[in-house]
C-alpha cells in the first residue's frame, strides 16, 4: 500500500470523528511516513511499519472519549424534513419503549455475566472455608481421639483445599475474560460512530 492509499483509507475509517481532528491526524501520519522514507525506507515499508489502517483506527478510538464521538454525531448537519419530524414525534410511543427495552436487555446480560463471576468466586470462597473448617474439626477430632473420623475429615479438608486452588485459576481466567469482553464491547460501541462516510 502506498502513502496516498493508506491516508485515504485512514480518512474513511475515521469519518465520524470531528473533521479538524481527522485533518490533523492525517497530517501527523503523513509526516511520520515522510520522515521514515527520508531515512531511506521504501514507501511501502514505511507505511507497513505504521501498522494496518484497522489497527490505527481502533487505537485512536480506544484513546478517544465516547462523549466526543456522540457530540460529533449529534451535531446538526442538515435540517430534518417535515415528515421526518412528524414520524419521529408520532412514533415516539413505539421507539422509546423499544429503545429502553434494548438497553435493559443489554444491561441485564452484562449484569448476568458479572453475577456468574461473583458466584464462581463465592464457590471458591466456600471451598476454601470448607478446607479451613475441615482442618479445624480434624484437629479437634484428633485431640478427642476421633482416630479414623479425624483422618477422614483431614482428607475432605485436603480435597476442598485442592479444589479451591484449581478453581482459583478458573475464577481468575473468567474475571479476566469478562473484563476483556467489556473493553471489546466498548470499542465496538465506539466503532458504531465512525467508519461510515458522511452521506
Amino acid at each position, binding site marked *: 500500500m502506498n502513502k496516498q492509499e493508506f491516508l485515504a483509507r485512514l480518512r474513511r475509517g475515521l469519518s465520524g470523528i470531528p473533521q479538524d481532528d481527522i485533518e490533523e491526524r492525517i*497530517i*501527523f501520519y503523513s*509526516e*511520520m511516513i*515522510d*520522515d*521514515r522514507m527520508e531515512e531511506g525506507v521504501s514507501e511501502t515499508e514505511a507505511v507497513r511499519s505504521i501498522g494496518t489502517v484497522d489497527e*490505527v483506527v481502533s*487505537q485512536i478510538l480506544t484513546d478517544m472519549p465516547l462523549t466526543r464521538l456522540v457530540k460529533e454525531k449529534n451535531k446538526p448537519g442538515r435540517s430534518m424534513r417535515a415528515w421526518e419530524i412528524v414520524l419521529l414525534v408520532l412514533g415516539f410511543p413505539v421507539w422509546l419503549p423499544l429503545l429502553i427495552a434494548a438497553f435493559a436487555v443489554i444491561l441485564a446480560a452484562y449484569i448476568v455475566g458479572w453475577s456468574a463471576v461473583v458466584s464462581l468466586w463465592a464457590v471458591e470462597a466456600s471451598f476454601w472455608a470448607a478446607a479451613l473448617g475441615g482442618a479445624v474439626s480434624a484437629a479437634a477430632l484428633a485431640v478427642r481421639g476421633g482416630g479414623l473420623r479425624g483422618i477422614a475429615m483431614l482428607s475432605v479438608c485436603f480435597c476442598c483445599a485442592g479444589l479451591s486452588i484449581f478453581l482459583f485459576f478458573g475464577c481468575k481466567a473468567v474475571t479476566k475474560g469478562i473484563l476483556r469482553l467489556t473493553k471489546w464491547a466498548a470499542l465496538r460501541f465506539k466503532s458504531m460512530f465512525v467508519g461510515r462516510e458522511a452521506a
Partner: protein
Amino acid sequence: MDIQMKRGLLDVCVLAAIKSKDSYGYQIMKDMKPYLELSESTLYTILKRLETANLLTVRTAEHGGRLRKYYHITGAGLKRIEDFKDEWKEILSIYRFVTKGDDGNE
C-alpha cells in the same frame, strides 16, 4: 505497568525528548524507543494533551520541500519535568519501604 503511572511517565518522557532542543514526531519516537515503546496514535494523543496543557507549543516549518511540525517545550513544561524529579524521590523512598528486608534476612 499500571496505566495511570505509564501515562504520567510518557508525558514526562516526551517533554524530556524536546527539552534540550525542539524536535518532531518521528525523532521523538526514535529517541524514546530504547526506553518506552509507543505507537503513533499514542504519541499524537500525548502531544495533543501536552499542547492543551500549555506544556509545549507547536510550530510548522519547512523541511525538504514539505511541512513538518516542531514541538517546543514551555516554561511550564520544564517545571513539569522538575516536579517529576521531586515526585520520583518520594516514589523511591516508598520503594525502599516496600522492598525493605527483601534481600537481607533481617
